[in-house]
């Protein structure tokens, strides 16, 4: 029904009384496409403030490789050391360390986006909180790719073995992504639980105990008993073992599968809790 009415200034206006019956003229894209659009936005914004998300993951492992190698390379001469090169030994740990550097960046920005109302705007645009989290996790994988390629390249130059060449590089990057999804979920959990953008940043030093309570820098045969037990509990140790078997020594498919499974289990468990907290805090 169309009726007319006069505005206060006297000009007639058409009132489309059935305007609410008119469906929107544009169909929103599928969930996958809109998630990819959101991912594109995260990458664009991440590249405009690259220090935390992109540069730290390159600098820290690179510096660590150079210094630790220089300081401890004679360790490889000790009886019982599994390899002749210390660089080769620490390579898997250094590669898997990359996702842990700058891991709080995405979680911290998520809370700022919730607080500023940006997430509300996304929800109004038909983006669900699941899509937001999926785009965030995918961004975590993308942000570590340049660092992954650079650090693996550097380690290869320093004689770290890559058993199957490019295939090994691809598998290492895949494992790195799996570990990134799992480890960053911990930061997202802390962020949504506290709703404080500083909380995931405060959690950044966690990377150090996680690194040291593992066999990434020193074989377990040289470590005290209590530390051996802690290493078994640390999921990072299993991911490093998976990376090690990809790079050198006897290839153990079970070890590789275990690394992926540990990362997947950690990811699924944390995401399940995150979903509950997010649904409660900001809605679906």
């Amino acid at each position: 029904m169309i009726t007319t009415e006069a505005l206060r200034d006297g000009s007639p206006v058409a009132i489309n009384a059935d305007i609410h019956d008119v469906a929107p003229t544009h169909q929103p894209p599928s969930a996958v496409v809109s998630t990819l659009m959101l991912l594109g936005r995260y990458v664009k914004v991440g590249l405009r403030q690259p220090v935390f998300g992109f540069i730290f993951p390159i600098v820290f492992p690179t510096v660590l490789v150079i210094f630790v190698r220089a300081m401890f390379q004679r360790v490889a001469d000790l009886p019982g050391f599994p390899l002749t090169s210390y660089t080769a030994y620490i390579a898997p740990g250094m590669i898997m360390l990359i996702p842990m550097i700058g891991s709080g960046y995405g979680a911290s920005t998520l809370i700022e986006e919730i607080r500023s109302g940006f997430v509300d705007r996304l929800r109004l645009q038909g983006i669900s909180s699941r899509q937001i989290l999926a785009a965030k996790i995918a961004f975590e994988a993308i942000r570590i790719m340049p660092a992954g390629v650079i650090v693996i390249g550097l380690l290869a130059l320093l004689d770290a073995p890559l058993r199957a060449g490019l295939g090994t590089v691809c598998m290492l990057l895949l494992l790195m992504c799996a570990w990134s999804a799992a480890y960053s979920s911990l930061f997202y959990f802390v962020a949504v639980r506290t709703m404080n953008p500083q909380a995931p940043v405060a959690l950044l030093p966690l990377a150090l105990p996680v690194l040291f309570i593992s066999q990434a820098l020193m074989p377990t045969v040289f470590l005290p008993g209590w530390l051996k037990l802690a290493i078994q509990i640390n999921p990072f140790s299993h991911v490093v073992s998976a990376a090690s078997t990809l790079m050198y020594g006897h290839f153990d498919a079970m070890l590789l599968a275990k690394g992926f499974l540990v990362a997947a289990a950690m990811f699924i468990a944390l995401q399940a809790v995150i979903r509950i907290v997010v649904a409660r805090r900001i809605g679906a």
Partner: protein
Amino acid sequence: MSTKSAAAAVPDNGIAIKTIGLTKTYPGSSTAAVSALDLTVASGSVYCLLGRNGAGKTTTIRMLTTLLAPSSGTAEVLGVPIEQTRRLRPRIGVALQEVALDLWLTPREQLELALAMAGWRRDERRTRVTDLVEQFGLGTFQHNRIGSLSGGMRRRVDVALAVSHDPQLLFLDEPSSGLDIEGKDEVWNVITSLRREGRTVVLTTHDMEEAVALSDHIGIVKEGQLVSSGPTSELTNRHGVYAYVHAPGEVADATLRRIAESGFTVTDNDHSRKTLKLQLDSANATRIGQLTAILDDHGMGTSRVEVRSTSLRDAFLEATR
């Protein structure tokens, strides 16, 4: 147009929003932020929600825009229950109280992304964004990062985003706060043009001038309840006619007592007690002469007595007292 009593006056040209007993109590709170709200907004009208800070305006907007689930009650927006978020969200535009923008994108990028997510084709997006940039005076800043823009400019981008996908109903939560005169004019022009197109606008504001200039209907909210509502002009008249006495000096207690004894109700006086506000009703409206006589008797013969209808400000203060 709102409340059950006013609902009868809704023209039969459609209803954009209808709520029945809409209530929201936040977890851990013993009082309701919005309590049993019955609201009816006619299609094609501009409806303004007025209320003090914390009165429940934003909570109401958040429920109606599907961002917050009500504790009880029902609401339909554009004929769609608010629980049907997927159906409803593409039809509404929202500018919330906080300017919700991506500070690292430019206005142009932000608008393009929003339209892409709404399903607009690339060529349509470009044309639409160019129009919006022009309409909101963003031309000079369209390629600057939003983080580098002033608060007022960010607000313009925010409102531009809200209207970008051509919504049928627009919610604007304090849309002109922080805007300069030029920016405010642009927002007002947008609201007026949406009104001309027959679209519905729901806005909240603390600016009485804005409410009077833009809205057809006003609802006044206090402690989560709609305490007064109706067409803008009716609302101000409904609250009566007042006599304002501007005295040359402080009005003494004895004078106040005498005025009260004569049947006048003093509803307000300022801190210096130089201005009195007296409600006039059918019993005393014709006795202004008696009032001036009392003032004469008390040596305040040079007082100026002004009789006028309530302004929206008066009506608001009256309703939220």
